[in-house]
């Protein structure tokens, strides 16, 4: 299950969607809007998405996590638009027969999502300043369409 939405994320529904009698372990990750980053005091966040490409990227991630890990079910929901403090920007849920694979798959999903899915975060600080957050380009996702697969095949 893949979702890109401007509405609040229902993480219970996402979690229920991955539960299964075949799975003994479920891992849910929530990314939420944090108030402080060092001295910077966030008032609210704005997420912008390239919706068509973001949905395609999320679908690819859902397929890839099943190939890389022993995953029973996987689900991802990402919100965009304006988010207030404490609200959920992203939720990732995976189920697996055993817990080690569930943790590894959940962590890989959120790490890779943050590298590859075309969504951007703009900080609105309490002093009125704004800032687009742009990490360094990650060659694995950005250099060519096959590089993601190539990098993954080289990983342990």
């Amino acid at each position, binding site marked *: 299950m893949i979702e890109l939405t401007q509405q609040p994320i229902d993480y219970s529904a996402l979690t229920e969607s991955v539960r299964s009698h075949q799975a003994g372990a479920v891992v849910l990750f929530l*990314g939420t809007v944090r108030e402080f980053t060092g001295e910077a005091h966030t008032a609210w966040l704005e*997420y*912008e*998405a*390239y919706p*068509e*490409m*973001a949905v*395609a*990227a999320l679908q690819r991630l859902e397929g890839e996590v099943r190939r890389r890990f022993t995953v029973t079910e996987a689900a991802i929901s*990402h919100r965009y638009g304006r988010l207030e403090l404490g609200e959920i*920007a*992203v939720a990732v849920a995976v189920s697996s027969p055993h817990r080690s694979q569930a943790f590894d798959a959940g962590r890989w999903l*959120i790490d890779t*999502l*943050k*590298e*590859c*899915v*075309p*969504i*951007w*975060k*703009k900080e609105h600080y309490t002093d009125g300043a704004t800032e*687009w*957050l*742009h*990490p*360094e*380009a*990650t060659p694995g*996702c*950005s*250099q*060519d*369409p096959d*590089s*993601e697969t190539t990098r993954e095949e080289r990983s342990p």
Partner: protein
Amino acid sequence: MKITVLLFAAAREIAGAESVELDLPLEASVADARAALLLSLPGLALRTNALLWAVNNEYAADDRILHSTDVVACFPPVSGG
């Protein structure tokens, strides 16, 4: 050929537009589009190295050849999650 480049996030704000139209020779590459975009919008120059390109919803390298029917986008490194 005319290629419309979709812009996002800081690239959109710097350009002051959600897209920009480039006039490129046939068989132009992503690198050619990048050069034409910077001529058209010098304000993006500071981000030249960081800007990423996508063609038809997939990341594209500099040597990717463009066709007039391609959906092309240009944006800074992503920061979702």
